[in-house]
């Protein structure tokens, strides 16, 4: 609690060095150049986060620090300021602001789809091919000091900031500026201080990219383009964005990530191109501290902790997720955990409504375990070093800028007041230096009558009590500068008030006043002693009762990941999917993540035994067509072969857990169907709680999504102008892409065959990631899964493939596959279809539920897929429909979701059947897995039990208890004065195939 303070006259303005004088500027007055020489004496000077000097002196002249230390003699001509009892700190540095820059106009709001696509960039001039690449932007060109904003920053203790424009994926350079109020010329300390990047295309309305993976792909391609462009003299053409990109690579590279997955994503892109980004995080790094540390990236971390939710009403509070509740609880502990993890970080006020919330939030982080030294380092030396301006700011050393703050005590003590903030030798008073605690007891004399006065309360709202004889009344008190206004009602029964006006005298007050009858009187208040302080609550250790971090950080996550176990499943009905068929009363032993033995009466003393009596054991379900566990699914370039789902795995998608509960162990996360050539897919196992990279199936073959028909023609968008608009055009897209790929290969082969000497004279071909993807297909290093419906397009793609001497791997959806099953068999393509979907658009008018059965009988490797998180957890039921529609055997039906998709994904050597040596990816079912009555009781991946129906029941209880615990805490926080505004959590979108258009549920 701040004490009531009394301001005492102090005017140092006349001492201030007039730094506005600048030699090149015209003078409209007489010359007024001053030395600005100050000596700050008797202070506790914190030179940097490691060094503090007691009783020290700081000499400042012409905006620079001259000397710091104890026992320094004040030179003549230096204005001395005695700072006994005060502290001097280097002023704070925020390297993530947009201070002094024009606001970025927000891009197109609402649903950006349904209108004509903008294929070309809109930026006029010789700039990049993509509007989101704005590397040519220079903040220094637009910087203009903003006194109001500067004051807000200064009042929070900042002296200099990095300012950048938050627009685009490549955002150009930032400027490092001081927060003084001289000319822009003086404030601009470094014009090209850092280069900035993000996963946000900003104001660009260009068609591509519009997904997380697209942003990453564009960054990759731009690195390659810049390298190619820069390698040529003369340049192949002019691209001022690439020129700037090249020139700014040597600067510190700052990436805005804002969330822990994105921190890892950004770092991974940097690693590919030998760049170590400084990464702006989201304050949620504690959720994955080990992975964050492994990036080695210095972080810029905000302290914009979430506000508590409105949880008073139990029905309404259901809309608040456990993940959000837990983040509310743990966010203030984030910085402490970063420090403990040995991670380099600086702290930013970015994300706060105003910098004036900043110090309080840093102090909160300290009360959650962050050391004061680390906090100061993160606000001074670290940001200065990251920006390579540590010769100018971040410490109080000779020759550095006179950027410092004067405080009443240790900076991070709650009661400490910031008195002054000096910027380049320019003084700014925040709260007058010579303030005195006015909270005290006084002997009061009014018009000769003696009484008592007590002042208490906060400085903003002081409270007074006046006592004459034995009667005490409340007094209203107001301080303004060094003046006091005081009034009280001497007789309780009457409303007449005594009104006093006074000024400071010694440690008390005196002044004039007027009695209710109009008599003018004099009064004095002489300090007689302190008011006994109410004991502040002892500092409680706020870190003690914090909840645990969950992996993943959502409801149904766990504090610990499941261990790999030796498991012996006894006496089950085992669906092997091998020649053995279905084995009754059989044991299966899982060890070291593999299936070790299948047989009767197996034993292993080290194994945990699971009774499978009456139950069924099957291979884990594999979903060939899924869109769960990804941050984005669709980009929209006609050829988006350069985008990779694997770049944006989302480990916190609850649908991973829900799918596990449906017996699913592996999925292909496919790109959507917006483009003839879609993106590269990711094959993952549903290792719930693991990091993105650990979910991926190591060593798996690479796949890509293609798509045909209505979606790629953008049929649902009547305004679409994008090529292609017909199935004829779709064919041409493929022929063109593969033709170009062959020529690309020739060009590169020719170049690569040149001698070193010849290469010097030749022009190196441009690398093109989309075309390289095509080439991988031609060279059988990448395989196509193609979204398809009608027979004409199915035939077309097979013909194109044969023309280019490769084979389509899989047709997905393929609802008219039954019409050309013989051709598909001859081509050697697999089919992954829906059980019973039709009639939701014209191209599925002739879809029939017997499709899977016909293709299967024709010898096409056939599977049933989901394309949908809901159906993805009931794939066993969808497979069973091949019995109803087409009369397949139960074993063949089960293979539709296990062995057959394994074959399509080239994973049949490690999964898809229960066979010795394969991965221990199995599911124990309550009854026959093809029955509607079946439930997965245990879903095991790599010998780890990722889903257990009994554990799930416990989890439900734990979730409820944890919610209740935090709700109580939130309610207390609300009583404690925290604002509560938010009412509901955000819900992740459930992706489908055509999900650039989120409001459509077409497939």
């Amino acid at each position, binding site marked *: 609690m701040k004490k009531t303070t009394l301001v005492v006259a102090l005017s140092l303005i006349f001492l201030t060095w007039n730094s506005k004088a600048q030699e090149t500027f015209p003078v409209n007055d007489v010359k007024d150049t001053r030395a600005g020489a100050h000596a700050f004496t008797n202070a506790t000077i914190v030179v940097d986060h490691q060094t503090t000097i007691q009783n020290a002196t700081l000499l400042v002249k012409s905006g620079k620090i001259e000397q710091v230390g104890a026992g320094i003699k004040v030179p003549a001509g230096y204005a001395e300021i005695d700072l006994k009892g005060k502290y001097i700190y280097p002023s704070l540095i925020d390297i993530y602001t947009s201070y002094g820059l024009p606001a970025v106009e927000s891009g197109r709001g609402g649903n*950006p789809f349904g209108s004509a696509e903008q294929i070309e960039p809109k930026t006029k001039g010789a700039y990049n091919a993509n509007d989101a690449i704005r590397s040519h932007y220079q903040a220094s060109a637009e910087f203009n000091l903003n006194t109001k904003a500067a004051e807000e920053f200064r009042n929070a203790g900042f002296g200099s900031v990095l300012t950048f424009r938050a627009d685009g994926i490549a955002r150009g350079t930032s400027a490092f500026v001081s927060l003084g109020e001289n000319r822009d010329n003086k404030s601009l300390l470094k014009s090209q201080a850092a280069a900035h990047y993000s996963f946000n295309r900003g104001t660009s309305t260009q068609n591509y990219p*519009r997904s997380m993976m697209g942003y990453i792909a564009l960054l990759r391609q731009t690195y390659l383009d810049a390298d190619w462009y820069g390698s040529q003299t003369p340049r192949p053409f002019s691209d001022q964005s690439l020129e700037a990109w090249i020139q700014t690579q040597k600067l510190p590279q700052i990436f805005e990530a804002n969330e822990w997955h994105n921190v890892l994503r950004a770092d991974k892109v940097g690693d590919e191109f030998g760049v170590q980004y400084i990464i702006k995080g989201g304050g949620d790094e504690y959720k994955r501290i080990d992975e964050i540390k492994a990036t080695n990236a210095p972080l810029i971390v905000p302290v914009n902790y979430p506000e508590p939710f409105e949880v008073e009403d139990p*029905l*309404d509070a*259901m*809309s608040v*997720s456990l*993940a959000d509740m837990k983040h509310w609880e743990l966010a203030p502990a984030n910085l402490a955990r970063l420090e403990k993890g040995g991670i380099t970080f600086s702290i930013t006020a970015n994300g706060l409504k105003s910098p004036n919330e900043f110090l309080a939030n840093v102090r909160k982080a300290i009360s959650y375990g962050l050391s004061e030294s680390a906090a100061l380092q993160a606000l001074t030396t670290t940001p200065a070093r990251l920006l390579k301006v540590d010769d100018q700011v971040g410490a109080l050393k000779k020759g550095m800028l006179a950027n410092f703050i004067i405080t009443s005590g240790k900076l991070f003590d709650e009661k400490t007041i910031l008195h002054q903030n000096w910027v380049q030798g320019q003084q700014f008073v925040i709260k007058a230096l010579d303030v005195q605690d006015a909270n005290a007891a006084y002997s009061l004399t009014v018009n000769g009558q003696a009484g008592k006065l007590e002042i208490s309360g906060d400085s903003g709202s002081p409270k007074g009590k006046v006592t004459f004889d034995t009667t005490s009344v409340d007094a209203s008190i107001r301080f303004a500068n060094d003046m006091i206004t005081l009034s009280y009602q001497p007789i309780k029964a009457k409303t007449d008030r005594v009104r006093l006006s006074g000024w400071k005298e010694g440690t008390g007050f005196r002044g004039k006043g007027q009695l209710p009858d109009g008599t003018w009187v004099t009064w004095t208040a002489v300090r007689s002693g302190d008011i006994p302080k109410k004991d502040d609550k002892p500092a409680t250790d706020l870190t003690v009762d914090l909840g645990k971090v969950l992996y993943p950080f*959502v*409801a149904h996550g766990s504090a610990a990941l499941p261990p790999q176990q030796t498991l012996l499943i006894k006496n089950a009905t085992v669906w092997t999917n091998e020649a053995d068929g279905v084995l009754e009363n059989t044991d299966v032993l899982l060890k070291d993540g593999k299936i070790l033995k299948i047989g009767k009466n197996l034993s292993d003393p080290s194994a945990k035994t699971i009774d499978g009596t009456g139950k069924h054991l099957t291979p884990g379900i594999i979903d060939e067509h899924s869109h769960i566990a990804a*941050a984005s699914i669709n980009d929209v370039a006609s050829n988006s072969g350069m985008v990779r789902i694997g770049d944006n795995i989302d480990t916190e998608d*609850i*649908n991973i857990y829900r799918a596990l*509960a449906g017996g699913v162990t592996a999925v292909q996360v496919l790109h959507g169907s917006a483009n003839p050539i879609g993106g590269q897919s990711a094959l993952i196992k549903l290792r719930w709680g693991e990091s993105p990279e650990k979910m991926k199936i190591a060593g798996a073959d690479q796949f890509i999504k293609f798509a045909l028909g*209505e979606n790629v023609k953008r049929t649902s968008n009547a305004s679409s102008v994008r090529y292609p608009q017909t199935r004829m055009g779709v064919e041409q897209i493929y022929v063109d892409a593969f033709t170009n790929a062959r020529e690309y290969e020739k060009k590169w082969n020719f170049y690569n065959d040149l001698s070193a000497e010849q290469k010097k004279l030749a022009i190196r071909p441009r690398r093109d990631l989309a075309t390289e993807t095509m080439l991988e297909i031609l060279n059988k290093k990448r395989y196509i899964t193609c979204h398809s419906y009608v027979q004409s397009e199915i035939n077309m793609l097979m013909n194109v493939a044969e023309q280019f001497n490769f084979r389509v791997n899989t047709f997905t959806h393929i609802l008219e596959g*039954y*019409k050309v*099953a*013989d051709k598909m068999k001859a081509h050697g393509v697999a089919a992954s279809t829906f059980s*019973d*979907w*039709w*009639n*939701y*658009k*014209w191209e599925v*008018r*002739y879809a*029939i*539920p*017997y499709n899977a*059965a*016909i293709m299967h*009988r*024709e010898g096409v490797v056939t599977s049933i897929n989901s394309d949908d998180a*809901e*159906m993805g957890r009931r794939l066993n*039921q969808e497979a*069973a*429909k091949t*019995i*109803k529609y087409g009369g*397949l*055997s139960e074993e063949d039906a089960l293979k539709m979701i296990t062995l057959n998709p394994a074959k399509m994904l080239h994973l049949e050597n490690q999964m898809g059947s229960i066979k010795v040596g394969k991965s221990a990816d199995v599911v124990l079912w309550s009854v026959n897995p093809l*029955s*509607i*009555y079946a439930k997965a009781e245990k879903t095991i991946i790599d010998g780890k039990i990722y889903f257990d129906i009994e554990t*799930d029941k416990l989890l*439900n209880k734990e979730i409820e208890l944890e*919610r209740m615990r935090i709700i109580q805490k939130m309610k207390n926080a609300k009583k404690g004065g925290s604002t509560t505004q938010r*009412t*509901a*959590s*955000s*819900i*992740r*979108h459930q992706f489908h195939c055509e999900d650039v258009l*989120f409001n459509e*549920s*077409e497939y």
Partner: protein
Amino acid sequence: MKFLIRYTFVVLGLFTTTLHAQVPVPVKPQSKPIALTGATAHLGNGRVINNAVLGFDKGKLTIVAEASSNPDLAGYEVINVSGKHVYPGFILPDSPLGLVEVSSIRAMNDVTERGELNPNVRAQAAYNTDSEMITTMRLSGILLAQATPTGGRISGTSSFMELEGWDWEDATHTADIAVHLYWPALMTSQFDFTTFTSTEVPNKEYDKEVSALTQFFTEASAYGKLAARETNLKMEAMQGLFDGKKVLMVYCNKPKEIVSAINFARKYGVKKIALVGGTGSYHVAEFLKENAIPVILQQTHSLPDRPDDDIDLPYKLPYLLTQAGISVTLSHDGMPARARNLAFYAGTAVAYGMDREEALKMICANPAKAMGVDNRVGTLEVGKDATLFVSEGDVLDMKTCIVSQAFIAGKLVNLPTKQEELYERYSRKYGHK
């Protein structure tokens, strides 16, 4: 080949009449009494007769008995269906069936009229018996459907249709059975394209929207009592709600919306109310029970609303509500063609705790009651419509749900649809048979 034998009997045998038709040819009214014998009959009221005799004549059930009671079958054509199961025709509630064909094509949609308050708009008038979707439902036991307009605040008036007939007059079972009210949402969703997340925020228009409904219902309930009145089609269409001829079907999901909506309808003297949606209904189960409100769950093969929810909550919901004493009906939401999975939604309820015959009620007896047509359909009882079907096995489980015969008002309908015709055509192409 073995796998086709079943269909050779069940399906292909009937092809002669359907080969080139768009939809299976409608059949003539029942001309002679028929008796199905030997089946396990699931009456839809909880009762099962293991060796049953089910007789019907002129479209009505005349015998529902155990074979051991030796009912008189003189004059009946006896069809032995031993080893099979007989069920009452399932009812698909709240369906766009007949009003929409290919949903993505504007020309093929007749399900949403413009405007907010459309009680006068009638599904019956647009119901297209040539819709190729309709007859596919019958292969999963759905023989009756509530053709229902959607959209706006009051979407229109639904009619109860038999899934057989040359035109909508033939197909109408009961016209104009319910008015459909989409209760204003307390929360609206804001979508963020940068993060692909949606966030619910309080609906600022809620009070205004409720106020518009208040005015409409106030006027509507007064309209009927006006001595001299100028005819107003919207007001006329509302009158059935106040005299009990129509059901008010109210759509909402959140507990608070449910309470507000039901109290609202009660206040205006609506006699019959059903709640549609109700994913959050179990939180106000006591309230629903006290008010005797049946709940029509739109889609139980769905994901929970929230990541914190029990992952099986949608599957368990029918059981939870039934346990709480509420009459539950299962419905379908989403891709119209997939409504044919209705029986499996009941199957899932069994997997999550419900008794099998109790689950069956949710797709026959309970919807009939909720829609006010239980005097004629929903259960197999003498005097009720002979709308029933024969399945080779347990119809709630997809692997045994093989419908071999279906009777609608006593008429043995032609089951194979265009889909079975295509199956046949291409199986022949490849020589699979």
